[in-house]
């Protein structure tokens, strides 16, 4: 098990090098550059050249990449060309928000999706099944930002149940440690701060959860239907076990493998795809910041973001692989 984890983490290194080199070159091939973003249409060629020299963009691309890698080894991602602050600092402030939002969305999606998918399979062909299959189709089709606006209009602006924007009420004056607001609240025992941060997560979390929820419902349903037809479920029934034991021990556990796989893939997607939801709810996560960085050709921010997402992706899928071996002894890792 330990060797498996180490090997997977070591595999991460060549992956990251390949990915960063590819993107480094690719980003600089994009038309326009930070100098255009800063100067706009009116800059003279001399001014542009000065800025490029200033940012070190006039050097050969491999030299630039070498410098990037050297800095990276000391965990320095450089300075943002648009905010002039260290990329690491920017990320430390913003990334935790997105992570909290993603976790919230996944909790909603898993918490509702697996039971619903299971029930739909058990009542195949009946009302609940049709509702959840139809509902999940709608969930996949509705654009997330649209759903976000609808949720905001109903539950925040009309009913006033949830806050409409931000990550926390600034008047609480919460202490910051990790920048994970909920975690901070728990660590400092400022319960109201934690609760408020959690409250702010509900609506954006719901909006962001819509697509993974729909996918999890469908995968769970299909997987449970398949397992219900397995011989060993019949054996369990022939033993006279209670329906509850058959369900939890024999059906659900076997049906979880494909669901867990999809959860791993979906989580990575959410982290990088939370931009629209964050924008609608003025949620200061990393999404909006990176979207801005793209239009500003803010190379250091983009490189840093992509690398972090890649690392998270690998880690999440490592967790998925590890949970396989807990669920299914046949894929025990070596």
């Amino acid at each position, binding site marked *: 098990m330990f060797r498996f984890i180490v090997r997977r983490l070591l595999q991460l290194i060549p992956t990251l090098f390949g990915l960063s080199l590819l993107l480094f070159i690719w980003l600089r091939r994009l038309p326009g550059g930070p100098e255009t973003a800063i100067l706009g249409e009116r800059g003279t060629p001399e001014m542009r050249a000065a800025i490029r020299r200033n940012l070190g963009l006039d050097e050969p691309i491999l030299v630039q990449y070498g410098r990037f890698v050297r800095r990276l080894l000391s965990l320095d991602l450089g300075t943002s060309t648009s905010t002039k602050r260290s990329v690491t600092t920017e990320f430390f402030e913003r990334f935790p928000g997105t992570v909290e939002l993603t976790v919230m969305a996944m909790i909603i999606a898993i918490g509702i999706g697996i039971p619903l998918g299971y029930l739909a399979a058990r009542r195949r062909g009946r009302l609940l099944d049709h509702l959840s299959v139809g509902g999940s189709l709608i969930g996949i089709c509705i654009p997330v930002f649209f759903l976000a606006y609808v949720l905001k209009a109903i539950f925040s602006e009309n009913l006033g149940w949830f806050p409409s924007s931000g990550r926390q009420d600034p008047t609480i004056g919460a202490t910051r440690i990790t920048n994970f607001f909920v975690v901070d609240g728990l660590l400092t025992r400022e319960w109201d701060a934690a609760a408020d941060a959690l409250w702010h997560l509900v609506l954006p979390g719901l909006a962001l959860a819509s697509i993974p929820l729909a996918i999890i419902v469908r995968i769970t349903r299909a997987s449970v239907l398949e397992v219900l*037809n*397995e*011989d*060993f479920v*019949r*054996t*369990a*029934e*022939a*033993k*006279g*076990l*209670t*329906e509850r*034991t058959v369900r939890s*021990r*024999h059906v659900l*556990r*076997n049906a979880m493998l494909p669901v867990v796989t999809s959860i791993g893939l979906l989580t990575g997607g959410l982290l990088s795809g939370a931009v629209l939801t964050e924008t609608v709810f003025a949620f200061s996560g990393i999404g909006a910041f990176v979207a801005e960085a793209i239009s500003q050709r803010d190379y250091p921010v983009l490189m840093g973001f992509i690398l972090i997402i890649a690392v998270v992706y690998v880690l999440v899928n490592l967790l998925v692989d590890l949970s396989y071996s807990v*669920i*299914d*002894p*046949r894929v025990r890792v070596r």
Partner: protein
Amino acid sequence: MALLEVDDLSVTFARRGQRTVRAVDGVSFSVDAGQVVGLVGESGCGKSVTSLAIMGLLPKQPGLRVGGKAVFDGTDLLQLDDRSRRDIRGRDVAMIFQDPLSSLNPVIPIGLQVTEVLARHRGMKGEAAQKEAAELLDRVGIPDPRRRLKEYPHQLSGGMRQRALIAMAVACRPRLLIADEPTTALDVTIQAQILELLKELVRDSGTALVMITHDLGVVAGMCDTINVLYAGRVVEKARRRPLFREPRHPYTVGLLGSVPRLDAGRGERLVPIPGSVRDVLAWPDGCAFAPRCARRIDECVGEPPELSLTHDGRGYRCVNPAPVPGTVPPAGTAAPGATAATVAPAEAAEPGATPAPAGIAEPGATAAPAAGGVAGPVPAPREEEKP
């Protein structure tokens, strides 16, 4: 009263816009404690559906109808509600399935799969359950049972898996065991071991065993009474020796003829039965075997023949049965003019035949009354047309 009395069991699957399929049609047999009864037939003849219907394990689906009775020790299993059925299953009536690998849950250890039965029906937990489970594995011949309890199905060999499955089935000392092709997925040597084990269990604990198989070798080695099924109906029932010595239904004759024999002369060919069970679907009336039957006569079409019982539980469902070896078949066996509905008892149809052929065929037969001996002619319902 026998331990299990199956009476006129029928299973139909109705589908909208399609003809209703009768998977099992008027099957009757009975099993006494300590007795082994075989249900034999080709795949698709309704053997497994029969056993699943008795256990209440047929997948629930719209259009499924189970009729008749399956009285186990005074209770009709088909009338029980889900809860009481779960109480009986695994405790009084247990089942062994065909493919031991897919019949075991791949993700939980063997031990838990045994102890969960003990916990459910015998209230055993913890160390006591572990100990009992180890003893069960030991009893079915699994070496080093303590270690095996912690292993998963994929770590066991095929034979060991089937043994483990048997251990689960006999964990609560059931009075009736239904084995659905328990040896089909196994090597021949392992097959013999498993059959020996089942025989032992029956002998030691007086369990009644219903053996479902397509393998006549298995039947010959194990069963006291045999029911030959074709297209959902019992076409011939007899004690073991009479069935092998003088099969009367052409289908049974065909089955025996398609088994290779070591003592067959060189150059003698196997005689396969032409066609397949599927041909039945296009054959709405009369004897279901008629389309494939070499002894077909005009009377085979029309009403399906009833199961005519002769003596000692022996019976067959045929208007033109194969002659008993050693007798001259009378011309026009089925008396012309006789409506095909019933057949006169075998003795009457064959004046030249020695009476009570079973008595001659099996002089050493033990006296246990054969299955179905009390049942009269079984009405043979016709295929239904869904309106």
